């Protein structure tokens, strides 16, 4: 464990650590672009120069290993001036299009210029022209002029995904990033290149031009796209959720996440959601408040208590919710007919070798754990037989939150609607459900970012998440629905952060938020 001194602070680092890691450890500021802790060292941006006592030439921090007693400093005038110049080299051919650049606000060049630069530029020559709006693949767009050639994205496709779609073409200041002939940047991890791009060169087709980043709040959560449970950050404002980015967790996902996981906000946003409860009686659909709907079915369930009542669960809810609903059905509704709806049996154990798993549910382990605890082992064929014979008359379904990963949705709706009475709880809209007739009640549920709870990932790691925000304020959690269905009273705590005012005109919202957020509602589209 060698000890070194960083800007006068003594620090002990792991054997073989680089100076850059020592800087990270002490929290001292050091300029850098090409260095990324999840990738190999390229040493090309030349920004992380620092002085080492006894060494006449400044060295780069990212490729120099700390040795015992090393005295490192990047606060001297010589180094500061050197960093300024290297920053200037980065900027001389970089377009000054920050006002229309998607990266503005979270741009490495902007940040580092403010911290280490602030010089008077002397470049008075013409800038180099390169390609604009290069379509790299289905999800990523490149602006070569903004690119500072840090090679993070090429190293990512080389080292992490090992798909090698990206390369550096040409040389000198004509160098450009590009895809290899005949290839597209189309792997399930392609959007990570957008995250690691320190400038606005690589932008996400999904996110670009939809929101300025300074109008977004972010909060920590996890991804519910599969059983890996990648740690993520969601970016949102009053309009909804705009994007999801990975959050570093060495035990789960490292620095990365999948592209499919990034779509996990789409079923959370208001457009995809079931906003009010719906009840189908003989004459057609009527809308009512979700809490009321849950209360209404209470009496029916109580009268159906016993073996003619069945509960179908998907593995998309939290551990706490299962702990509420399963005992309630066993003890209060006197039924052990509780079934686990497996969405994609054939590919359940698939794994792409990096992060994505075939089990597209966040909490399979958690559900199985609770079911086992209560001695439940209902097989799906029992349910089918019961429905076909008419032995099961009432079915309560805790349906999927993410319907994209349930290819058997329509098939299961058809099967379960054989019951005389169907109570279907789910967060999203579904046309097949609305096409049903008979005694059907649909109750809107809260999505994963609107509640807190625990998910157990594929390897049994429990991850507790906090509530991020509210999208549909009246929607219930499974716990709340259980309480109401069991006939207990519940006052739903209304939160102040209700961000979607559904019945108000858009311009009213605009007026109210004008000072803060003038452009939020003027969106473009691809």
């Amino acid at each position, binding site marked *: 464990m060698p000890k070194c001194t960083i800007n006068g602070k003594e620090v002990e680092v792991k054997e073989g650590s680089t100076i850059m890691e020592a800087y990270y450890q002490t929290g001292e500021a050091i300029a850098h672009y090409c260095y990324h802790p999840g990738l190999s060292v390229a040493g*090309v941006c*030349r920004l992380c120069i620092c002085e080492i006592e006894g060494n006449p030439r400044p060295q780069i921090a990212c490729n120099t290993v700390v040795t015992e007693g090393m005295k490192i400093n990047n606060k001297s005038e010589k180094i500061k001036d050197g960093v300024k110049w*290297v920053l200037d080299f980065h900027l001389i051919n970089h377009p000054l299009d920050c006002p229309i650049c998607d990266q503005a606000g979270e741009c490495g060049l902007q940040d580092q210029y403010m911290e280490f630069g602030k010089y008077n530029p002397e470049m008075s*020559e013409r800038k180099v022209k390169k390609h604009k709006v290069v379509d790299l693949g289905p999800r990523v767009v490149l602006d070569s002029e903004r690119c500072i050639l840090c*090679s993070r994205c090429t190293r990512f496709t080389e080292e992490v995904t090992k798909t090698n779609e990206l390369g550096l073409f040409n*040389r*000198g200041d004509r160098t450009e990033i590009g895809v290899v002939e005949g290839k597209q940047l189309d792997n399930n991890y392609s959007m990570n290149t957008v995250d690691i791009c320190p400038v606005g060169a690589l932008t996400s087709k999904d996110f670009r031009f939809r929101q300025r980043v300074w109008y977004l709040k972010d909060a920590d959560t996890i991804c519910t796209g599969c059983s890996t449970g990648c740690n993520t950050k969601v970016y949102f404002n009053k309009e909804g959720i705009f994007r999801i980015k990975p959050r570093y967790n060495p035990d789960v996902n490292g620095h990365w996440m999948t592209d499919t996981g990034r779509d996990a906000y789409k079923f959370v946003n208001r457009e995809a959601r079931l906003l009010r409860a719906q009840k189908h009686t003989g004459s057609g659909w009527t809308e009512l408040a979700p809490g009321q709907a849950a209360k209404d079915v209470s009496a029916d369930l109580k009268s159906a208590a016993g073996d003619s009542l069945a509960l179908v669960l998907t593995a998309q809810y939290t551990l706490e919710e299962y702990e509420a609903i399963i005992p309630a059905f066993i003890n209060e509704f006197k039924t052990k007919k509780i079934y686990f709806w497996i969405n994609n049996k054939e590919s359940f154990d698939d794994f792409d070798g990096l992060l994505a798993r075939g089990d597209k549910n966040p909490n399979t382990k958690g559900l199985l754990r609770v079911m086992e605890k209560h001695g439940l082992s209902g097989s799906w064929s029992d349910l089918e037989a019961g429905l076909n014979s008419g032995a099961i008359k009432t079915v309560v379904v805790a349906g999927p939150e993410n319907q994209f990963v349930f290819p058997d949705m329509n098939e299961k709706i058809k099967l379960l609607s054989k019951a005389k009475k169907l109570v279907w709880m789910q967060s999203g809209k579904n046309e097949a459900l609305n096409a049903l007739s008979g005694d059907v009640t649909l109750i809107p549920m809260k999505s994963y970012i609107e509640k807190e709870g625990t998910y157990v990932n594929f390897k049994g790691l429990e991850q507790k998440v906090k509530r991020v925000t509210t999208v549909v304020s009246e929607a219930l959690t499974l716990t709340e629905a259980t309480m109401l269905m069991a006939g207990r009273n519940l006052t739903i705590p209304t939160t102040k952060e209700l961000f979607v005012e559904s019945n108000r005109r858009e311009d009213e919202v605009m007026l109210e938020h004008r000072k803060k957020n003038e452009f939020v509602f003027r969106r473009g589209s691809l």
Partner: protein
Amino acid sequence: METKLLTEFYHLDEFRGIEGYKKNGGYVELAKALKMQPQAIIDEVKAAGLRGRGGAGFPTGMKWGFLPKNNEPRYLLCNADEGEPGTFKDRMMMERAPHQLIEGMIMSAYAIGSKKSYIYIRGEYKTPIRIVTQALEEAYKAGYLGKNILGSGFDHDMDVYSGAGAYICGEETGMISSLEGLKGQPKLKPPFPAVQGYLRKPTIVNNVETLAAVKYIIRDGAAAYKKYGTEKSAGTKLFSLSGNVMKPGNYEVPLAYPLKDLINGLGGGMKPGRKLKAVIPGGSSAPVLTAEEVERATLDYECLAGMGTMLGSGAVIVIDDSQCMVDLLGVLMHFYHHESCGQCTPCREGTGWLNKIVHSILEGRGRLQDIDLLMKVADNMKGRTICALSDAAALPVLSFVSKFRDEFEFYVREGRSKVRGTSYAEMHH
């Protein structure tokens, strides 16, 4: 007077073929070397004080000594990517005496325990590629390459690899990248090639002239080789003399040979009516010397380093009084801008910037502050990158501008050359 050690038989056309080469003492020392202990060869080369002839002048024996002492496979690469503007010695060596290089390489490979070597020749050198390839075939046929060379039990294979026209592939790690089939750009050091080079195995990269000289160290012994030159710059060296002299060409002289004797003696002096203005002593990357400095300069590592320049690859470019320094810098900057690999930011952006500033001055758009800006940009490119190309671009700028500032200022003020009297546009149209 030339001291013909390596070039003794270069005037004989037969020296190019294996028979003629053997007739004139070829492959005699190979048998001798293969009977020596490998370490003894390394010690001999160390004792001879041989330094790399490609440009950096790094002691060859010391470089070989960096190899790990284990049985890992290792490679010997011959750097024949002679791209430094003004240099044309390796070309002549390969064209006139390919077997001399091959013999030197087999000895060196034996010394470092390498079973495989490559001769990386720049792509534009079509003739040398053909000649060396042919010579390799002859050497294989004669049993100097392949399995159990001359009954010594030493196996060695050698191949020619053709570059694709990039100056940067003359940098040793750039060459290794290129040889591996990657984009030819230098690799981050450490690890150094001697530890992890070609295919991540220990690799030694030496210049053509360095490897060829090994033969003569084995033949005559370290002491005899050391008689030429000085303590720190031992041996003979080929110099490529170019510019407005009477007899440009390659000359082999002992190191520490006076520069003015090379120009005025061997080179036959300036062309009639021309006066010496400046000399670039070691290829275009070396800082320029003024006529007054040329008087004092001797061609060895330490004297030239003391004058703030370097021996480099031994390309002596003579500049006479009809040449405009601003024009010349324009040519050089175009070259470095074209050849920067684009990896490190200071070099990628800096070479382009320098090129644009010089051309702004040439095209009459220059401002007086541009002259200082040239110095500042060059100063901040120096020593900030993975390889030395950035320095190679910066050093000429610093020396040209500081030593011939009047020509630059005249160009900015008048929009025309002080020497030619005409503008850039007039010169080109």
